[in-house]
């Protein structure tokens, strides 16, 4: 079987996948996650910032990687000792690139998958690779959005009709499969378009930024946050704003130390900070500096 390509996909899209596809070939099985935009994902290439590290057991290291709009987990266990040892040495705030297979777990009673990446190789990279990844992933997500839009706009789209419009076969097939499995109403392209736009804002030169009228974004809350949680969120948002002295983003270390001074437990801080980043309420301006959206 041909080596599976490492798909470029924002974790936001990956985390919203609800369909797992098994393909068998010569008695071997390959798992593919079908995203709402029709990417069939068996292997991924991701770049992001190390957000947190957690030793689950002596053997298993769980690393949360954050990149525009969302975050994802790498789980390096005893079968991937090379990447695990490298990840152990890296520090929070480092940029890492990872190639790996997706690994899915479905909690009982849930209709969503928890996706993590089993790394084949990781490496510390620089700002340059991060920028290229955001660009590359934006471009490829946009391709999927275009193909999906074409399919949604057509009366009776087929793989052939999409290919006639110039989309490559893999894209046309993926889109048609996603349309069949998710249904028209489930696929909300605007959300993915939003993510692409936000991601590009990280890397587009400041002078090119277009002033846009504030459009109210209805990003529905993931689960209901309690009053306590909301309180924590607003506290942390306030800390980030207050630490942003020069207007070029608050340093992560400063945010952490102020939060500590205010008596916010490290555990809660990590969770809420992660959620804020995931929801796009805050974003990383550059290496280790954060701003409120």
């Amino acid at each position, binding site marked *: 079987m*041909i*080596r599976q*390509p*490492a*798909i*470029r996909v924002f974790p936001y899209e990956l985390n919203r996948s*609800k*369909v*797992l*596809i*098994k*393909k*068998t070939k*010569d*008695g071997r*099985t390959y*798992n593919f996650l079908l995203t709402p935009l029709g990417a069939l994902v068996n292997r991924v*290439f991701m*770049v992001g910032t190390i957000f947190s590290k957690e030793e*689950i*057991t002596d053997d*298993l290291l769980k690393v949360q990687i954050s990149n525009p709009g969302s975050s994802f987990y790498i*789980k390096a*266990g*005893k*079968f991937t000792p090379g990447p695990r040892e490298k990840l152990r040495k890296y520090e929070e705030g480092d940029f890492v*690139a990872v*190639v790996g297979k997706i*690994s899915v*777990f*479905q909690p009982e009673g849930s*209709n969503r*998958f928890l996706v*993590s990446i*089993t790394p*084949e*190789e990781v*490496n510390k*990279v620089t700002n*340059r*690779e991060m*920028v*290229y*990844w955001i*660009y*590359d992933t*934006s*471009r490829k997500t*946009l391709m999927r959005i275009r193909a999906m839009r074409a399919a949604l706009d057509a009366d009776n789209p087929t793989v052939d009709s999409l290919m006639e419009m110039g989309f*490559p076969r*893999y894209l046309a097939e993926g889109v048609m499969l996603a349309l069949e*499995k998710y249904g028209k109403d489930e696929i909300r392209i605007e959300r993915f378009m939003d993510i*692409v*736009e936000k991601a*590009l*804002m990280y890397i*587009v*030169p400041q002078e*090119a930024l277009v002033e*846009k009228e504030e459009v109210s974004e209805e990003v529905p809350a993931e689960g209901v946050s309690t009053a306590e949680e909301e309180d924590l969120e607003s506290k942390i948002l306030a800390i980030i704003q207050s630490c942003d002295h020069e207007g070029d983003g608050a340093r992560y270390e400063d945010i952490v130390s102020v939060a500590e001074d205010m008596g916010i437990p490290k555990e809660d801080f990590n969770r809420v900070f992660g959620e804020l980043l995931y929801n796009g309420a805050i974003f990383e301006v550059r290496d280790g500096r954060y701003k409120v959206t």
Partner: protein
Amino acid sequence: MPGEDSQPSQIDTTEVIIMIDEKEFQEHVEDVLNALGKHDEDTRRVVEDMLRKYIFKLFMAEKDAKVRVVESLGGDPSKLSSTIQKKIADLRPGQKMLTVIGRILSIYSKEVEREGRVGKRYYGVLGDETGVIFFNAWYLPEGIEKGDVIRIDRAYVKEFAGRVQLYIGNNSIVTKLPKDYIPMVKMESKYHRIIDLRPGMRNVEVVAKILDAEKKNYIVGGEEKTAYSGIMADESGKILYTSWNYEPPVGKVLRIRGAYVNTFRRLPQVVFDERAEIEVLPDEDMEIKDRTVDIYYLLNRGGVDVKVEGVIVDVREGSGLVAQCPKCGERLDGNYCSQHGFVEVQYELRIKTVVDDGTGAVFVILNQEQSEKLLGMTLDECIKIAKESMNVGVIEKIARDKLFGLPVILKGNVLSSDKYGLLMLPKEVKSVEDSDVRERVMELYKEVVE
């Protein structure tokens, strides 16, 4: 599978779909029914259910699943066909035990001496609705001629002299079928961009500019023939071509109807002769530019003089400093050559890597100069570092740390083989320029906001 995770590896999903090639599956069902000698609906349903379960739930190999089904229904598994039926477009070098049904489009014979006996060897072109292939037969039943439809069991495919050929050996079984067994395919030529041409296609139309032509003479079937070969291109890419008995004008744009596509030295090639409809378009010109192509388009095809852009996702073992004997160039493990004894080792720099652009992956081998350029280190510097750390392998590690994740642009030929996938020994390699990315980001951003 999350086998190594602390969480249970249970994937009891809301929706698990199994992708199957229904046509291939039905062929397996037919095969089992034939072996059982029953073709009634009830048996078919039982066989289908069992096969589905074995293949897609228990993930058994198709062959084993069939044996199991035939046994459990009281049949004789040895009656299962041991061959796989394939369409001509799906034939690839290395395939064995094939069943192929096709029409003889041309046939020649030749007296040859083999193991002291004089025999006849047949060769020609076989076609079905999906494509054409050269065949080479050590045996054919009496009276087979052009236009006949034949079924060949136990055929095999090999690449020989740059051509993918279907071989009919002494163990093969050839059966003549009625002429209308497969439709007479008299298709209109179908236009394709060069990048969409795939080996096995026939009766294609291309509009392309001839970039160069080299003349060679061959003896085919006792007749002298002239072939002109070179590269032709359209705006989507380049491809090899061979023109029989027609000299294409270099630098001109041609419209060719009725060509077919095969493989030459693991590269795609367009072939046409005087029977094709060839038209020179005197007023047309094409600007042939280096366009970046998605690796997806090169899968199972290869590419001539292509440009790909992707990220280094693997630096393979065997990269770094390679020790050689200065006298014979043999690769050494230490400083002992099996022919020349202990020698002063000579080092070379090599990088073996996988470049992936999100649509496909290419295995890439970089030569010394390219490796030096990408690493930003000369051979001498590498040798110095290796000597200081008393470890030759250290360069491989440095290469991995420096190159993994790096976006690169490669130019050159991409070879395709069934067994190893895509391989590239690039003519040119460079990392993607930051300024270039910045410009492209601006463009993309504008597109998105508008």
